[in-house]
């Protein structure tokens, strides 16, 4: 099991020591052209999570390939590149330009930008034709039947799934009753998202048996085990990094006495799950 960061939740060039705790660094989503992102305010705390409306701020494909990627390689951490766009060709062109990275994550589900016109399966198929690198499709649990989307991207050639992206939410300023975020809505992350992530991983594992990077509200070793039990092969941390940049090391410590391979898919085999729970280090 690899411990990764959720895309957009870490800048490895600004905080390399944080990234070095991980088994791989997932970049912010790269789009063909540079994006400044949305106007501030872009973040809001909620009762058990947070909203962000960063809006895919990134240097764009050319500057990423010529400037950021070489500097990221110098860190010596396996790299996963998150790729975004607004049509299938946007994604495929970036995939074709990438080489010598661990994997590509296709961001098919950012709640803070207008959606791509093409379907998730069309985008994955175009990227499949453009690269031999492992392709992970990052999906949103906002879809009423995420398992059907998972089956469609699997058929289109995805090697794995990243589950889940944030869910669109709204927070109001209690004094003005106006949205806190300049964009209005933002993506909900943090502990509020965990049950949604578990359900999505559980459903997509049953539907496809593809490798899954599970994420959504992971703050502890127990959260990691829960995702793995639902079918995640790897787990990513996001929001917890903001408050606790050393969380990956702590979580690894909490899992030191557990064989995650043994836990894999345990939630699909009900009779065994109680034994595994007993092994978790409190």
């Amino acid at each position, binding site marked *: 099991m690899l411990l990764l960061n959720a895309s957009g939740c870490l800048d490895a060039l600004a905080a390399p020591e944080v990234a070095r705790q991980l088994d791989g660094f997932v970049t912010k989503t790269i789009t063909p052209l540079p994006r400044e992102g949305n106007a501030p305010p872009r*973040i809001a705390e909620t009762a*058990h999570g947070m909203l962000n409306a960063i809006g895919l701020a990134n240097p764009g494909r050319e500057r990423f390939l010529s400037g950021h990627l070489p500097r990221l390689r110098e860190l010596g951490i396996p790299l996963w590149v998150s790729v975004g766009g607004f049509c299938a060709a946007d994604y495929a062109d970036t995939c074709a330009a990438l080489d010598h990275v661990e994997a590509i994550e296709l961001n098919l589900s950012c709640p803070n930008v207008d959606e791509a016109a093409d379907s998730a399966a069309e985008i994955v198929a175009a990227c499949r034709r453009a690269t031999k690198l492992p392709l992970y499709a990052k999906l949103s649990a906002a879809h009423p039947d995420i398992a059907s989307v998972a089956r469609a991207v699997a058929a289109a050639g995805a090697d794995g799934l990243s589950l889940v992206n944030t869910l669109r939410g709204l927070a109001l300023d209690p004094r003005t009753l106006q949205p806190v975020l300049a964009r209005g809505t933002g993506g909900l992350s943090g502990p509020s998202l965990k049950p949604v992530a578990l359900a999505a991983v559980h459903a997509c594992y049953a539907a496809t048996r593809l490798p899954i990077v599970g994420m959504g509200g992971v703050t502890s070793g127990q959260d990691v085990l829960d995702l793995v039990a639902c079918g995640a092969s790897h787990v990513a941390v996001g929001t917890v990094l*903001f408050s606790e940049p050393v969380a990956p090391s702590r979580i690894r410590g909490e899992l030191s006495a557990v064989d995650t391979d043994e836990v894999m898919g345990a939630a699909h085999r009900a009779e065994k799950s109680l034994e595994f729970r007993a092994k978790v280090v409190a």
Partner: protein
Amino acid sequence: MPKREQARVVAAEPVGPYALLRVERGRLVPGVPGQFFMLEAPGRLLPRAMSLCLATASELAFLIDPIGPGTRALCSLEPGDRLAILGPLGNGFRLDVERPLLVGGGIGIAPLPYLAEALRFPPAVLGFRSELHAEAAVLLPGAEIAIDPTLVTELIPSGHSVLACGPEPMLHAVAARCPGAQLAWEAPMACGFGACYGCAVEIGGQLKRLCLEGPVRRAAA
């Protein structure tokens, strides 16, 4: 990466409407005046960014305005409580200035006591919205005080290098009046070390992360 330490609370003392949160320094270093720390807010998901107000050999202190659930939780901490503190972060004030003058507004006076000490107690002018808020001026003995409707910018004499912290309209007014002034800005911030991209502000016509590019910036000369 700066240190993240569990710090023990010495006291949270009222100063006007604010609270001065004093913690044992432990292995934390105070950094440059104007730098900030991320303080774990009890019961909240995200830490809160606070500039350092005072440093002694054994303590660090933060001036906090209890305006929301996180800052209220911080102001309610009891002696002996513990909280995680990450820092110092960001870029502080440049101290190699001639004839410094400190300008503060409201809770923006927070970094000025530590800055005053580093600059050997230069003159200071402070603006507050009420007599109650102005009680916080006790942290900067000798400062000249303006209370609403008088504006602190009316008290700024010419011929000084201005170092300022306060609400955004005050900072814009200071920038207009004192080109080249050093201004400490504020933005909502989830992490403080460049990870969340939440603290974007417009700098030179582009959106940039205040935690990495600030919080202290020089006004256009």
